[in-house]
């Protein structure tokens, strides 16, 4: 037990709970439970939304898994991580105005609401709901595991206890506070992530005796550690540039990110969010992965990648600062998991329960359903997380790629292409997901490209071709795009 480390962490939890309770007041006084619970009443300003975006995006893999891989692969992995920079601005620039305007016009609360209005197809609603539930569920499990591992290594508690502490903290504030609590805690968590990254980066450089010194010992150990190709030369330009699709631009297709473009107050806050988001994501991704590389000479011989970051923090920083820095991955994990939890439960409540099971439900029933569904999903994830898999990064990225393959064209073309229709969307969603799963399972790197490349490219052409072939059926329909 490192009590000096645990005190800042406990403080952090108290703040987070406070926000949850405060947000619950808004929910009680709001006249539209759904708008408030799942979108925070669309009142979020620029700073908060930039932070909730990057906090949602930056996950356990950015703080725990990522630096661990950087530790073994060297600077090439930092290069790869920097492909994530566009996630800060591209999503907002693409969705920004148009999505915000249309979402308000449709009174859309979830991404699926938008798709339902746009394509008028039950098949699309159900396909989307299934893929969100399945993929985000697995992503959530990765986050649960990450959070639990972290608490485990800090407190010395066993994994199961750590998992319950972590899951309980997240579940409480999400269930009582809804999206407003999620966004506000994200703002706190995002700030901690940025500050923690900077503190740890400085601490590590000092501990390693300066950049020159660290680089020299890396070169002495294996010159490839400072090349863009990775320690074993495995990061080829083709792989790295196709990876860019997955973590840079494909992020446009992630529902948990897209839904945040619906909750903005006005376009001014969006402009602000773009610049703050880009700076924050640049700092975090660059800082954390570089820290992983710099850790190698400072703390040699770590075999489990996931332990690099916590061990390094405890070694190079005084205990109280270490507590603040270690709150960062906790924050990252919590903020990702809360967004996913919110999205999965809004999918179940709004898109399945209200569409198909009980369309006449009144506010009290919706409220009860939302609390119950959120709690049940959370508990089921805990049960799955009791038997965790080893490397978080891959599990998490699997969910990323799957969702991108399913949603990217359905959302983007639905928004920008008049001729996009439900047949094109359905065929493209199914083929995107099928291809992704087949390629991921059986041919992980076709021609050395990242798994997600072919599904995304193929589903684009399939979408366009099928939409054009069936366009004669949609002559009369008026569209708001």
């Amino acid at each position, binding site marked *: 037990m490192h009590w000096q480390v645990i005190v800042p962490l406990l403080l952090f939890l108290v703040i987070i709970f406070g926000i949850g309770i405060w947000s619950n007041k808004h929910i009680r006084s709001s006249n539209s439970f759904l708008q408030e619970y799942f979108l925070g009443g669309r009142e979020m300003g620029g700073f908060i939304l930039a932070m909730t975006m990057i906090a949602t995006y930056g996950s356990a893999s950015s703080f725990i898994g990522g630096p661990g891989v950087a530790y073994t692969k060297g600077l090439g992995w930092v290069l790869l991580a920097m*492909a994530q920079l566009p996630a800060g601005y591209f999503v907002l620039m693409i969705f920004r105005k148009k999505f915000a305007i249309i979402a308000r016009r449709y009174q859309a609360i979830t991404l699926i609401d938008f798709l339902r209005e746009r394509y008028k197809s039950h098949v699309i609603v159900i396909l989307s709901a299934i893929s969100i539930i399945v993929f985000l569920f697995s992503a959530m499990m990765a986050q649960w595991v990450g959070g639990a591992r972290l608490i485990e290594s800090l407190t010395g508690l066993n994994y199961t206890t750590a998992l319950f502490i972590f899951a309980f903290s997240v579940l409480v504030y999400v269930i009582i506070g809804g999206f407003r609590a999620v966004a506000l805690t994200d703002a706190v968590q995002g700030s901690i992530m940025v500050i923690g990254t900077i503190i740890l980066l400085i601490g590590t450089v000092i501990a390693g005796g300066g950049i020159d010194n660290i*680089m020299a010992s890396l070169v002495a150990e294996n010159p490839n550690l400072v090349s863009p190709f990775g320690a074993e030369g495995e990061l080829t330009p083709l792989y790295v*540039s196709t990876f860019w699709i997955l973590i840079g631009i494909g992020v446009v297709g992630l529902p948990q990110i897209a839904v945040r473009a619906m909750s903005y107050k006005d376009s001014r806050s969006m402009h602000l969010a773009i610049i703050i988001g880009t700076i924050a994501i640049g700092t975090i991704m660059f800082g954390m992965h570089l820290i992983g590389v710099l850790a190698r000479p400072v703390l040699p011989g770590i075999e489990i990648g996931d332990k690099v970051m916590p061990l390094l923090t405890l070694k190079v920083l005084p205990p109280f600062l270490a507590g603040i820095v270690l709150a960062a991955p906790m924050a990252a994990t919590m903020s990702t998991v809360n967004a996913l939890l919110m999205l999965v439960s809004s999918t179940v409540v709004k898109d399945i329960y209200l569409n198909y099971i009980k369309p006449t439900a009144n506010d009290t029933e919706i409220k009860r359903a939302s609390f119950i569904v959120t709690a049940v999903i959370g508990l089921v994830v805990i049960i799955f997380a009791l038997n965790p898999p080893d490397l978080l990064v891959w599990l998490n990225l699997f969910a990323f790629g799957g969702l991108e393959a399913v949603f990217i064209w359905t959302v983007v073309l639905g928004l920008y292409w008049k001729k996009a229709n439900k047949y094109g969307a359905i065929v493209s969603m199914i083929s995107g997901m099928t291809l992704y799963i087949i390629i991921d399972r059986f041919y992980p790197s076709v021609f050395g490209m990242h798994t997600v490349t072919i599904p995304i490219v193929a589903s684009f052409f399939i979408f366009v071709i099928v939409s054009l072939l069936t366009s004669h059926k949609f002559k009369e329909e008026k569209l708001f795009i």
Partner: protein
Amino acid sequence: MKDQRFKIAHREALIGIGLVIVNFAIWFGFAYGLGSGDPANYTYVFGFPAWFFYSCIAGTGFMIILIWVVLKLFFKEVPFDDEEVDQ
């Protein structure tokens, strides 16, 4: 009725794509342009290998400034609610 706001939105989405292409060119170009040789012959800037400094550090800083300039010069503020437009 053609919504003027969508015209703005479309143009700004295209600008977003342009920025991503510039971003990719800087990031990829410097990394493999300068980093492809033997690591023993690398030059170093502020302690970092030159490819890494230009691609990941200077390139990121440049993108942030570029995005800020583009936002100031080309992005317009529009209302989101339909009622505000009708008035």
